[in-house]
């Protein structure tokens, strides 16, 4: 025994946490006790079971309250004036007529608010316009009608200046008139790509384009802000209540403790609701000015203009292999049209991770353009890069005359080549084999059956995603006097089922029925800290904290029960509401223990420990698509998608399947329909709505056979889970594109796969395999 052990181990360590494909270092407290990991195939009463959502009834009855539903005393309604130009100036602002409208309580412009550094240092509500839809003024009124009238009554002179839209060759040379900032370039290389390509017997190179697409969560962004005394309460539809709180505090010069952020139910985010928006700040400022609660909910066109998007990208990929089909080099260059601002991630990471390849070079250039700021959108950059890489892989397979599944199986990554360490578990080979078997790949005539002018094709694609989750995340489990439990944590449920999953974990540990556990989340004044629900991190981050809190509560209950039963606590088990001695008959109900305690409360505390440093934790999947394409009309119909994903333990397989459906259907929209069109000359967005911007509907949905095939990953964390929400969108579009490649004999290189583009492909490639 060393001297140190006597004083316990150090309390804090540095650990690595991956957020949306980027690694960050964080200092983390080492748990006082770390629960023993659940074994991979451990059998549980509730964990791993397809129980119904605990908030299902609230959602099917209208009882779930979303931000726009919040009604406060004397609440006012707010609207924003947004720029109709892509770049230029707003001058001669005159709000006097707007202020004179009956029912209008406040009209604010940049002159009326403190200087808040917003976009590239320009102030919030500034008059220098950098994108269409940029807010210039805000109004609060008794009714929405009065607020709208006031917006229309604001006099302003708009003067347009040259702007830049999208990725163009002009941009690549760095000449982009009006760009809000200089481009940023990132490079990463392992091995020597140039030399490997020169020496490789097989090299394919292709350029791919993807369109900008919008999140289109059905619930628009919105805020209800209420300033009372020196405290601000904000109801916000957000993926990160604590992040919104910190950002609001920074922008408004407040202490975080002066702000409470609440997100009870929220109607989808997909990355667009990761922080405090201009609408959040303006609602708060209007409330401070009027001393009344303010409700500011964006309309659908605002959603399309100024709440983020997946960026337009051009990508060139080279795949070099030996004659044996083994990868020798991957070369990737990407040009990203970010928007006026945005998050610089890394599409190249997919190429550094997915396949076993000694030489990989990625160059990524991000351009600032006169479009609304970009924000992360479900598996940001991986989705775009997967279309390019997985298409290029099919091109290489064809050149090699290899089956696309076999070519991939041969080259899948066996370890984390960037960090030179093994994966904790890697279910990707099993996923690929499973998908191949279930779709019947290789049975008969793949791609050939053609009925007249309708052609059929099959395609496959695979995916990898860093999915460890990580600290910090905290939870509390309070045991009530009636023997039920309350889980309290500062995370939020975006609709993924976080409430349900956390209830399952706590109920499992405490041996309670699911209905005897309630979960409180989405309130910075209630829950201890948990991070943003982004990067597919929530279950793997908060889940272990909840288990630890429940184990802590369980230990305390057992100590009391041990005294009541006259045995030692380590002989006790808790199940089905009873604490039992060994396997014997002697037992006591949990309720009896809590009644005995009276008002002495059992509170368990838990937090998320550090990530393992010797392994990389990944979430993987394979998908195969079957499509039909009409050669006369160019219309593509996706007939079937088969998906297998590996994400460690699925706490709830039913909810996991719902996540897979969601990713696949969004991926289908990305493949076939979705595109935000910004007029290159006028700079305005031409389809800012759900009519002209088509997302998938009931009629577009194929037969989907999607499942999680993995068991618990005990190295990842002690509940064995890895992230799942984002990964299933990654392979869908390339699987569909590869199916079209198979059907038409020519490869589509641009998303979305509109009928016009398909017809152009049909025209070019008349060489059908017959």
């Amino acid at each position, binding site marked *: 025994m060393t001297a140190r052990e006597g004083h316990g181990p150090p309390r804090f360590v540095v650990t690595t946490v991956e957020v949306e494909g980027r690694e960050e270092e964080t200092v983390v407290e080492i748990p006082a006790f770390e629960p023993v990991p659940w074994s991979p195939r451990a059998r549980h009463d509730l964990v791993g079971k397809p129980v119904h*959502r605990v908030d299902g009834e609230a959602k099917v009855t209208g009882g779930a309250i979303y931000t*726009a539903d919040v009604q406060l005393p004397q609440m006012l309604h707010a609207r924003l004036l947004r720029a109709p130009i892509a770049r230029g100036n707003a001058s001669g602002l005159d709000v006097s*007529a707007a202020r004179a409208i009956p029912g209008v309580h406040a009209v604010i412009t940049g002159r009326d608010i403190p200087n808040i550094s917003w976009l590239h240092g320009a102030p919030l509500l500034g008059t220098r316009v950098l994108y269409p839809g940029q807010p210039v003024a805000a109004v609060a009124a008794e009714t929405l009608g009065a607020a709208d009238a006031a917006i229309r009554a604001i006099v302003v002179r708009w003067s347009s200046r040259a702007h830049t839209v999208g990725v163009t060759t002009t941009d690549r040379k760095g000449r982009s008139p009006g760009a809000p900032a200089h481009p940023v370039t990132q490079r990463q290389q392992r091995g020597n790509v140039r030399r490997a390509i020169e020496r490789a017997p097989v090299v394919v190179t292709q350029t791919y384009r993807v369109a900008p697409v919008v999140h289109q969560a059905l619930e628009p962004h919105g805020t209800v802000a209420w300033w009372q005394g020196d405290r601000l309460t904000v109801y916000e539809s957000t993926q990160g209540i604590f992040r919104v709180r910190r950002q609001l505090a920074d922008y408004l010069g407040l202490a975080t403790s002066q702000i409470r952020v609440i997100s009870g139910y929220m109607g989808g985010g997909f990355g667009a609701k990761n922080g405090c928006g201009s609408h959040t700040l303006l609602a708060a400022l209007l409330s401070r000015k009027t001393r009344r609660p303010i409700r500011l909910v964006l309309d659908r066109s605002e959603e399309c203009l100024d709440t983020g998007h997946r960026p337009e990208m051009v990508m060139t990929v080279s795949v070099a292999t030996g004659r044996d089909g083994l990868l020798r080099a991957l070369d990737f260059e990407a040009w990203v049209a970010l928007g006026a601002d945005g998050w610089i991630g890394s599409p190249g990471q997919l190429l550094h991770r997915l396949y076993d390849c000694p030489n990989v070079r990625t160059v990524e250039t991000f351009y600032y353009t006169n479009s609304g700021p970009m924000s992360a959108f479900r598996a940001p950059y991986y989705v775009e890069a997967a279309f390019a890489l997985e298409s290029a892989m099919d091109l290489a397979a064809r050149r090699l005359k290899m089956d696309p599944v076999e070519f991939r199986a041969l080259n899948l990554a066996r370890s984390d080549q960037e960090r030179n360490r093994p994966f904790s578990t890697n279910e990707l080979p099993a996923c690929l084999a499973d998908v191949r078997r279930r779709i019947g790949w290789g049975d008969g005539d793949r791609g050939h059956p053609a009925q007249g002018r309708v052609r059929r094709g099959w395609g496959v694609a695979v995916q990898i995603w860093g999915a460890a989750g990580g600290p910090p995340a905290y939870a509390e489990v309070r045991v009530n006097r009636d023997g039920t439990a309350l889980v309290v944590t500062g995370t939020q449920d975006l609709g993924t089922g976080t409430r349900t999953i956390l209830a399952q974990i706590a109920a499992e540990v405490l041996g309670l029925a699911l209905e005897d556990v309630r979960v409180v989340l989405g309130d910075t004044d209630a829950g201890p800290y948990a991070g943003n629900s982004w990067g597919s991190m929530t279950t793997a981050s908060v889940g272990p904290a909840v288990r630890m809190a429940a184990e802590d509560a369980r230990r305390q209950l057992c100590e009391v029960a041990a005294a009541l039963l006259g045995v030692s606590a380590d002989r006790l088990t808790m199940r089905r509401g009873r604490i039992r001695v060994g396997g014997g008959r002697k037992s006591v109900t949990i309720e009896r223990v809590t009644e005995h305690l009276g008002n002495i409360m059992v509170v368990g505390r838990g937090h998320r420990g550090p990530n393992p440093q010797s392994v990389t934790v990944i979430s993987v999947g394979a998908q195969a698509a079957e499509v039909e394409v009409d050669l006369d009309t160019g219309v593509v119909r996706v007939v079937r998608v088969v998906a297998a994903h590996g994400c460690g333990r699925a706490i709830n397989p039913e909810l996991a399947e719902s996540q897979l459906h969601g990713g696949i259907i969004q991926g289908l929209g990305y493949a076939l329909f979705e595109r935000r069109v910004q007029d290159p000359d006028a700079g305005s967005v031409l389809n800012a709505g759900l009519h002209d911007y088509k997302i998938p509907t009931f009629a577009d949905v194929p037969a989907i056979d999607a499942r999680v095939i993995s068991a618990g990953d005990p190295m990842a964390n002690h509940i064995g889970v890895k992230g799942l929400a984002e990964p299933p969108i990654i392979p869908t579009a390339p699987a569909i594109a590869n199916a079209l490649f198979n059907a038409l004999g020519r490869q589509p290189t641009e998303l979305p796969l509109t009928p016009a583009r398909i017809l152009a492909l049909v025209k070019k490639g008349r060489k059908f395999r017959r």
Partner: protein
Amino acid sequence: MRSGTRPPRAAGRVRVSLTVNGARRSLDVDPRTTLLEILRERLALTGAKPGCDRGECGACTVLVNGRPIYSCVTLAAIWSGARVTTIEGLGRGGRLHPMQRAFIEADAVQCGFCTPGQVLSAVALLDRHPRPNASQIAEAMSGNLCRCGTYPKIVRAIQRVARRRKRK
């Protein structure tokens, strides 16, 4: 470019009488008021959601005389005298409607924002077609968008209710 117009003239008021979830309601409203606004802001029935406010997404769907309509693009005044059912009034005597139960059982719910509209459209569909086939479901439900991707499970929920009715 120059914007800025005079405020609109104050409009008169009209009386609208509706039977909402079985209760008679009579309100004085601006004739430009939509049914959605009345339900949400005057009657505190917030189950019908404003997803687009222009008849594109279906989150505001309610039943008027048993038929699904987009309440966000429906002036309340034109339906004076009509029977309106919102999600809050679908269940009877504190019990869930079979379609609501089926949505929970099939996990046809993710974020839940579109769910009230989906449930009401599904109820109206089964009133018209007690045993709908796949294309009837797709057609009847296509006016209700969902971004989370619950479509396959909503179809399962509808089929489950149709099957149970058949057995009875």
